[in-house]
């Protein structure tokens, strides 16, 4: 090895050592910074939603820091987040959570993107008694394990489409309806399915088709042919963005007439943009919409958040960003009420959270899920060739009337 190479290696190792010592000095609360940690999907299959989440976190950190930061013990602190890329891989996410806690000394965590990854991280944060506020894991099973340090600002998955069944019954003159449903076989979609089962039981409705779509499935022609043959009152589909896009494509191509179509992930799939008029009348569950009338002193209203986010990142905020921003507001509130950096005091403060944010009311139930915020439903409506998502339920925020029943394909232009 020649001299230059040796010198180079020495230089690199010196640099690494310096960097290592810097990162460890970032730990927990150092100087005027409260350090939060998060494993986030910046590459891999969740990378687009991972970035939405990160943008939501960053936007809130900037805003809170600019507006005076977090006041604890009469002193003002700023938020800072250490991110690691979990590659959309649950195992990696769990490793990174350990690393954040053990090596970087992080005492407070923000959640990753998706239920699966949150499930991987939660046991780790629980083990080290690290409070985690998460904004992107809605699976019901997260809230039934008795986790004490997990708090979710979003509504659990089983609530996603329950409202839709109530709406269908209401449109049917209060009489029970026939439900056809197709759900992907993953934790989230199956939780949505449980919600529908509850709603069906409550309203006395009958489930006539109950298909479980394989994860690798690209084709749901068989399910749709069954729907055509059995004529249900409502068709419910949930299978992430792929499920939403496949459903609309094949429903329109196979000319499946059904009075009501309820789905998840319409906004993440950019349904109204990718499928245009074919997606009209689809009813979609969402955690948030900019038109809701919630308010807070940091972002103002949903509309204002939408505007500021667009200005900063160049695209309209999906609900994944909004709920991620809300997670930071919850942390700030908890730190100030605890008036301490003691993890257990912060956890106790989180537990008694009761606040309104631009994203919605937040109050944590015994399992850590947010019990104060209802899900909303919007419907894709088109004017000419431009289609938009219009809030139709709950009635308090509805900007448009729910259009029912969906016209037959033969009558649609």
């Amino acid at each position, binding site marked *: 090895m020649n001299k230059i190479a040796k010198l180079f290696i020495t230089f690199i190792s010196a640099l690494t050592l310096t960097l290592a010592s810097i990162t460890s000095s970032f730990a927990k609360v150092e100087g005027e910074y409260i350090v939060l940690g998060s494993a986030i999907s910046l590459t891999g299959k969740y990378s687009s*939603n991972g970035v939405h989440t990160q943008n939501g976190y960053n936007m809130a950190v900037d805003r809170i820091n600019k507006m005076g930061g977090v006041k604890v013990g009469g002193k003002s602190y700023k938020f800072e987040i250490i991110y690691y890329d979990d590659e959309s891989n649950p195992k990696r996410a769990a490793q990174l959570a350990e690393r954040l806690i053990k090596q970087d000394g992080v005492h407070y965590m923000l959640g990753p993107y998706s239920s699966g990854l949150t499930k991987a991280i939660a046991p780790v944060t629980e083990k080290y008694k690290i409070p985690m506020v998460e904004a992107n894991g809605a699976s019901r099973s997260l809230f039934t394990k008795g986790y004490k340090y997990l708090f979710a600002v979003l509504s659990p998955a089983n609530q996603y489409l329950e409202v839709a069944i109530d709406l269908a019954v209401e449109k049917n003159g209060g009489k029970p309806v026939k439900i056809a449903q197709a759900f992907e076989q993953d934790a989230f979609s199956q939780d949505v399915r449980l919600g529908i089962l509850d709603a069906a039981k409550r309203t006395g409705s009958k489930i006539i088709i109950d298909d479980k*779509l*394989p994860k*690798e499935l690209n084709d749901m022609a068989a399910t749709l042919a069954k729907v055509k043959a059995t004529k249900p009152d409502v068709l419910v589909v949930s299978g992430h963005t792929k499920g939403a896009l496949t459903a609309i494509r094949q429903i329109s*191509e196979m000319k499946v007439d059904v009075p009501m179509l309820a789905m998840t992930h319409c906004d993440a799939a950019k349904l109204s943009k990718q*499928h245009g008029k074919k997606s009209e009348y689809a009813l979609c569950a969402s955690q948030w919409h900019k038109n809701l009338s919630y308010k807070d002193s940091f972002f103002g209203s949903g509309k204002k958040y939408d505007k500021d986010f667009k200005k900063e990142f160049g695209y309209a905020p999906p609900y994944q960003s909004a709920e991620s921003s809300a997670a930071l507001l919850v942390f700030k509130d908890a730190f100030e009420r605890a008036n301490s950096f003691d993890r257990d005091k912060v956890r106790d403060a989180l537990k008694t959270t009761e606040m309104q944010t631009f994203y919605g009311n937040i109050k944590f139930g015994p399992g850590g899920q947010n019990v104060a915020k209802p899900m909303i439903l919007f419907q894709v409506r088109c004017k000419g060739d431009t289609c938009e998502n219009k809030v139709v339920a709950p009635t308090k925020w509805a900007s448009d009337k729910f259009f029912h029943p969906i016209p037959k394909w033969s009558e649609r232009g």
Partner: protein
Amino acid sequence: MDFLIFQAPILMVQASLDGILLGILFALIAYGMALQWGVMNIINIAQGDLVILGGYIAYSMYLAGIHPGWGVIVSPIVMFFVGWGLYKLVINKVVDRDLFISILATFGIAIVFQQLMNFIFGADVVVAQSEYGTTMLFDNSVTLPNSKIFSAFISLLYAVVLVIYMKKSKLGRAIRATAQNARAAKILGVDTEKVYAATFGINAALCGVAGALIAITFTLHPYVGLPYTVRSFMIVIVAGLGNLPAVAVSGMGLGVFEEFADYILGTEFRIGSVFMLLVFILVYRRFKLSRKREYLK
């Protein structure tokens, strides 16, 4: 168990047609796999990712305002060179080696391709709109998307062209000779290196066609390649190497079987039932072979 399909027999027509149309498309991918497996003895794990890349080429055309249907011509041309380049870069180093090495190498290629596509096209699920409309049969009780019919037709067309090309052209004869005995072909003056590169290129081109068709019939995502690899692998296993008509029949057969399994056993058993069938076929084959062996003894 569900007997809806027996109560409404028209569903059988729908299931059979859906299965056949789906099967032909899968058969095209399997056909490419069988070709290069037979010639080069390489099991290409990256097959599905080549398909998805081909799909993204058609999708890019769609974004640029060109009808994605033209992807079935543009995509194979681009993909042929991608395949050729891939051969020169990686595959030529593993072609005479252990089967395991080639599986490992193509697995690596698959990961690189997935990440590249994720990097370039993003992780969102996308679709290209063909606006081909719908064919309705039997008083609208059977509906077939024209995009699926178009896919099946194009797949058949490419398959037929390729069969004729393999029979008649000089390169086709060289490929077949190499598949039979690479050493003998080399001695007789066939440039096997070139044959290998062309074979890999042709396989990639077929993947390109299939990808363009998938862009207009299903959905695209950087990480959905693997199911296509597995499916084509299965079709090849059932059909056997070097038996191209059998690949088509096996593709369609599996497609129809899968649709019927969906109606009768339920959607969740769709993929599982196909694998069960595969196990049965392999056991049956073994049984037949052992009988033959006894007879030879």
